[in-house]
């Protein structure tokens, strides 16, 4: 039994013009010690499936799944109180915008302390010590001073470190990182990734890393799920994915990497954008942007072959 198991997850948003399917038929399973990466462009519903797992979607979202379990507990059947025991404690999450993800009205220390109080308890003194320890652990210099700092006094990188300290404060078994480096400077990005992986190894956590950057995937993940327009189009081990990608979308993402572009003058791009609510194509969702698309692709939506371990969502896997 895996730590987190999701099967057949659908998320639809109620909008003024009807239901918008943000995620369709998503599945994944992670075990302790795993690093899974979900990759795709903006708007492909990567974050939505994880927010659904955490129960953080707004009330306009309709969530259904055939299986959604954390450590054997059915997340769909938990009472809010039981769910709150898991959320933050055993399964925690960090977000894309560290600066706006911290509450501007409370000090860094207070915000970490609140998490400890909620899930761990202990005396005020113990919690303070644990907070200082966490701040040191995530590489914040002079934690004695920073513990009383307000978020607006911190840089983006520092804020993300605080978010990480908060997220790992109760030794979660699963950490979900939703584009944790996107909003940061390039030099800081590597440090933060390094930190996440280090913490993951040391604590034997499971880590789900949501990103749109294949470079990040290559450096971090063991397994990869490629997602496009709310659909998972390919599941592979990272080595296999880079060596032999099965879906045209994956191939397109990979060829947009500078390392792969070789001595071409310009980086190849994928023409067009991820379809939104009003411009969903017939047939395969990727067909308007796919260079291999045929008439068949334009009419019939593909299904994954039963014997395909990569579960490639394509009529003509590469």
């Amino acid at each position, binding site marked *: 039994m895996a730590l987190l198991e999701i099967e057949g997850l659908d998320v639809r948003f109620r909008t003024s013009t009807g239901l918008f399917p943000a995620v369709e038929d998503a599945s994944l399973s992670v075990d302790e010690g795993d690093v899974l990466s979900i990759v795709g462009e903006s708007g492909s519903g990567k974050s939505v499936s994880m927010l659904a797992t*955490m*129960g*953080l979607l707004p009330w306009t979202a309709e969530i259904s799944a055939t299986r959604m379990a954390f450590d054997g507990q059915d997340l769909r059947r938990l009472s*809010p109180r039981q*769910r*709150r*025991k*898991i*959320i*933050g*404690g055993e399964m*925690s*999450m960090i*977000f894309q*915008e560290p600066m*706006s*993800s*911290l*509450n*501007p*009205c*409370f000090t860094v220390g207070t915000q970490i302390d*609140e*998490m400890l109080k*909620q*899930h761990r308890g202990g005396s005020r003194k113990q919690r303070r010590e644990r907070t200082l320890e966490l701040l040191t652990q995530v590489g914040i210099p002079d934690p004695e001073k920073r513990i009383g700092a*307000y978020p*607006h*006094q911190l840089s983006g990188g520092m804020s993300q470190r605080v*978010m990480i300290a*908060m997220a790992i404060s109760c030794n979660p078994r699963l950490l979900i990182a939703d584009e944790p480096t996107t909003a940061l400077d390039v030099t800081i990005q590597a440090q933060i990734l390094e930190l996440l992986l280090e913490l993951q190894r040391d604590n034997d956590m499971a880590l789900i890393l949501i990103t749109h950057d294949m470079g990040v995937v290559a450096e971090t993940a063991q397994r990869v799920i490629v997602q496009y327009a709310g659909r998972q189009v390919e599941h592979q081990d990272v080595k296999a994915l880079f060596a032999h990608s099965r879906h045209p979308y994956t191939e397109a993402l990979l060829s947009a990497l500078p390392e792969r572009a070789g001595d071409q003058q310009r980086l190849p791009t994928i023409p067009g954008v991820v379809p939104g609510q009003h411009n969903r194509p017939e047939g395969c969702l990727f067909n308007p942007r796919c260079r291999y698309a045929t008439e068949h692709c334009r009419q019939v939506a593909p299904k994954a072959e039963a014997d395909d371990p990569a579960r490639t969502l394509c009529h003509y896997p590469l």
Partner: protein
Amino acid sequence: MIKFIFIKLAQLIPTFIGVTIVAFSFIRLLPGDPILLMAGERGISAERYAVLEAQLGFDRPLIAQYFDFIGNLLQGDLGTSLVTHAPVMSEFMNRFPATLELSLFALLFAVIVGLPAGVLAATRRGTFIDHSVMGVSLTGYSMPIFWWGLLLIMLFSSTLGWTPVSGRISYLYFIEPVTGLLTIDTLLAGNWDAFRSALHYLILPGIVLGTIPMAVIARQTRSSMLEVLGEDYVRTARAKGLSSFRVIMVHALRNALITVVTVIGLQVGVLLAGAILTETIFSWPGIGKWMIDAISRRDYPAVQGGLVLIAFIVMLVNLLVDVAYGVINPRIRH
């Protein structure tokens, strides 16, 4: 923080000078001879005219008069009332606690009702509760409070006989003033019956005066909360596994309060303007009623002094609100 207060205080000085000029010009702007105007239809004898002219300093050059006025003002001397011949300052100070008590009660009512209503409306957005809160607050916001007061008197005093019509406390009680706030003084005296009586007299005018601020606070709280509830840090708070009560009442409300406090501060002007009407309707012996009486009796020194003091209070409260704003908003403080 201290520096912040001093800067704010320094910024108030030009405004305060402006206020004194306005109040000073007030008598001098009257068309015609101010002393004859003050005398009104009663007429005035030549000696009395000379006495008044000397007393008011009208025989001196305008600039000199103004500096006299400022000089006296700084010593707490605002002249004497033409009607009661008592110092304007002490007249004002005698009545101010009544207005303060009324305004504080009104503000308390406004916050106690308006804040939770706004939070409730925001968290139940688009539901019947939200629409009701918004409907009630828009009505309250549009309320002619002098009529509202009359209506409540007709209902609760005349028809139901639940509340008294006018005054601050039953004539049965005499409470030695300590703070001047009867609800507090009665408690200090340990006189429960008197306290109940004072509260009884306070409740209707307090609600009337608090209606508009209540509506404004409810509207502002709702819109601030709606904005804040969509913020990333609220999602973070949820992701921490906190109860929704804590997420809303601590993480969201704390941030929403930053704008709400400013709006609450702005209500002080509204309260003092409203006090004029409320005190008139309920014969509440405060500065609002006193000012109206002074204006209608052409007691110009009283009007002039009252204007300065009231403006001074408004500015002081605005300063306090700025400070409070700094306290609850860490981004200003540091």
